[in-house]
């Protein structure tokens, strides 16, 4: 008995000693020690599958934060960025979001590229009534009161695009996308527009995420001879698709790929030669000529290197930080909480690189849709620019449902 007791107490002391090692367990020291700084979280993957795109969002948001700090902060208070790397894994997103929102007491967190990662962050964001600034275009059908949506929803990308494509190329659409919710929702919305403008779907096809062999798809395209390839293929898949499409010598002037997802980042990987002649619909292109954009591109290149590109998601990651700043400037410095920030942000206008954007009361953003044609130099020439700013309708494909300032309303 004695020996067991001794062993037991030895073990307990040892284990307790190890557990109380401050570096391993306690982390209270970091929270809000620096007085007047405003803690904001940056939750973009710097490693893993989506890091290629997502790290550019991180760079753009961080640049905006540092610009704001360099010009004196907000009401004289500096922004303190707290950086986490969720490594492209949803569970890690959930874990790091908890850290930022609960432990580090960030008043807002900027983050995410994929819908899956946004969904992973949502439970803690809503429960803790925090504010999550999400810069990416997405499929709509979400109406959280705790997320600021900076990217386009289906109606903002397609309302101008579909009639234009039918008029210029013809009514027969071939839909190709990755197999997840974003392409399906975009296609659902596209079908309602096609019905309205007299177009038709010749094929609707989904390949797994990361899929890279498109030879059978291209064969089908060859035999179907559609007028438009309506593409919602993302990331590496899109790069492979574009290269193989080019290698198969399909002519973009007869059968152009009209993409909702292809930006300067993908085109850089595809190569200008293979991307040239095809189209993308987005609220922002790097070559867009406004003073705000020239300043943004100039700053981005001088900071991260001359070969870097800006694109429609990194632009939103950048201007959302400025929207956050503008909201804070409206507030009494003693009354800064995620919810007051949100309420102050509604109705704000801001001169973003793409044009003047406005935050709707449904927390999505009014944007300037554009249609660009890719050139051999990897840049897009903006062919069509919407005459007016387009309001976000995240439930456009679903009659009787509207996202309003009070959340989702069902008729």
């Amino acid at each position, binding site marked *: 008995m004695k020996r067991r007791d001794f062993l*037991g107490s030895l073990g307990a002391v040892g284990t307790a000693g190890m557990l109380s090692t401050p570096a391993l367990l306690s982390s209270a020291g970091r929270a809000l020690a620096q007085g007047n700084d405003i803690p904001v979280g940056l939750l973009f993957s710097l490693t893993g599958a989506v890091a290629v795109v997502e790290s550019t969002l991180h760079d753009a948001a961080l640049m905006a934060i540092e610009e704001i700090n360099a010009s004196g902060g907000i009401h004289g208070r500096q922004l303190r960025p707290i950086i986490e*790397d969720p490594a492209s894994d949803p569970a890690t997103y959930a874990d790091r979001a908890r850290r930022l929102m609960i432990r580090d007491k960030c008043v807002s967190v900027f983050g995410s590229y994929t819908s*899956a990662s946004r*969904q992973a962050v949502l439970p803690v964001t809503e429960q803790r009534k925090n504010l999550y600034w999400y810069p990416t275009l997405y499929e709509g059908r979400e109406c959280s009161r705790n997320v600021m949506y900076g990217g386009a929803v289906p109606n903002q990308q397609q309302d101008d695009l579909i009639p234009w494509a039918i008029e210029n190329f013809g009514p027969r659409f071939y839909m190709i996308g990755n197999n997840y919710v974003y392409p399906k929702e975009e296609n659902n919305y596209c079908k309602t527009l096609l019905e309205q403008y007299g177009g038709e779907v010749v094929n609707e096809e989904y390949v797994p*995420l990361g899929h890279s062999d498109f030879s059978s798809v291209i064969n089908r395209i060859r035999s179907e001879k559609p007028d438009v390839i309506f593409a919602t293929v993302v990331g590496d898949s899109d790069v492979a698709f574009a290269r193989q499409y080019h290698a198969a010598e399909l002519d973009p002037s007869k059968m152009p790929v009209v993409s909702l997802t292809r930006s300067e980042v993908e085109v850089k990987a595809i190569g200008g030669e293979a991307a040239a002649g095809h189209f993308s619909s987005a609220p922002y292109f790097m070559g867009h000529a406004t003073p705000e954009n020239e300043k943004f591109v100039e700053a981005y290149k001088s900071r991260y290197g001359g070969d870097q590109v800006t694109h429609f998601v990194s632009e939103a990651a950048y201007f959302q930080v400025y929207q956050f700043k503008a909201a804070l400037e409206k507030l009494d410095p003693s009354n800064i909480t995620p919810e007051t920030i949100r309420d102050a942000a509604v109705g704000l206008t801001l001169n973003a690189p793409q044009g003047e954007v406005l935050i709707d009361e449904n927390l999505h953003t009014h944007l300037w849709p554009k249609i660009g044609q890719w050139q051999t130099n990897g840049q897009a020439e903006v062919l069509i620019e919407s005459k007016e700013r387009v309001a976000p309708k995240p439930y456009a494909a679903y009659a009787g449902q509207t996202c309003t300032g009070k959340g989702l309303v069902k008729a």
Partner: protein
Amino acid sequence: MSSKFQYDLVALVIFALVVAFGVPAVMNYDGFELNTFARYLALAIVSMALSLSWGTAGLLNLGQAATFGMGSYAMAMHLKLRASDGLPDFMAWNNVETLPWVWVPFESLTFTLLAGLLVPAFIGGLIAIFMFRARIAGVFVAIITLAFLVAFQLLFINQQGHTGGQNGLTGLAQMSLFGWIVDPYSMGFYNLVAGCLVVALAFGVYLTHSKFGLILRAIREDADRARFFGYNVANYQTLVFCISAALAGWAGMLYTLVLEFASPTYMSVSFSLAIVIWCAVGGRESVIAAAFGAIVVNMLEGRLSDVFVEGWHLILGVIFVLVVMFMPRGIYGLLSESLQKLRGIGRPRDHRDAETFPNT
């Protein structure tokens, strides 16, 4: 009662006390820290489940994440139904109009809890029967279970209308257990997870020291010899596979409660390999060591990523390589070897006798 069993019991009691009382006290009963640690504890259960099949029976199951995911989705389906009136939202997006029949029974919590244990056990058992009846062993077990995991995850993601696809199941309600609304940031929830882990470990310790465990170890060492002794090797292997799968499902259910969503990444190859790493770092021969390994590695990952935002993956990788090179039996192996050495110093005469005896 062997001395090894005594050690394991003492270790279990210490472990239970530290987890139940020590950790919350060190964390000042802070909701965030408790939630984070509850996540590690849930992962410790799946790690100890693997140690049962891998450490005790020598069956390296690389598909452990699949059974973990089944438990996780079972719980998520129940909570999703509770959160939605009628059809879950993602089904409407995928143009599914009526609730699929597989979803219907998940309205009931009792069914869900049973399904979270029994479905993984059943599916694990099914694979096991085919594998072990055919006397598949060694590395081929790993290959088959890995292939199953990949196929299962693909299938799951593809059935988007029924499973939520890549996004998984999100927007869940909170579980209500006999009228108690489970808040994942509360002490009560922490105790629930810690209690589950301790019960699972006690079961694991009992199992490894029972006759069943002894036979499993015999099979691990030499399956043919065990067969000649008259044991039905395939049945024993299948049973331990089922138990391990059920425990993984249990861990999965808790994991969904901690993170408040279920994602197909819970069934990914990288997650499955992570479980193997936790188990290896702790020591696969002991269920307690395997659970400890999961907690240590996850805690280390949490802290490293806090301090080295950019390089934490690399540092973690180097640590794993070092562990495999210098501590092939994990922390458990290190402890038991040094304990043996200590004993050796304590009894120098026996030692010398043993050495000199052959010469005389």
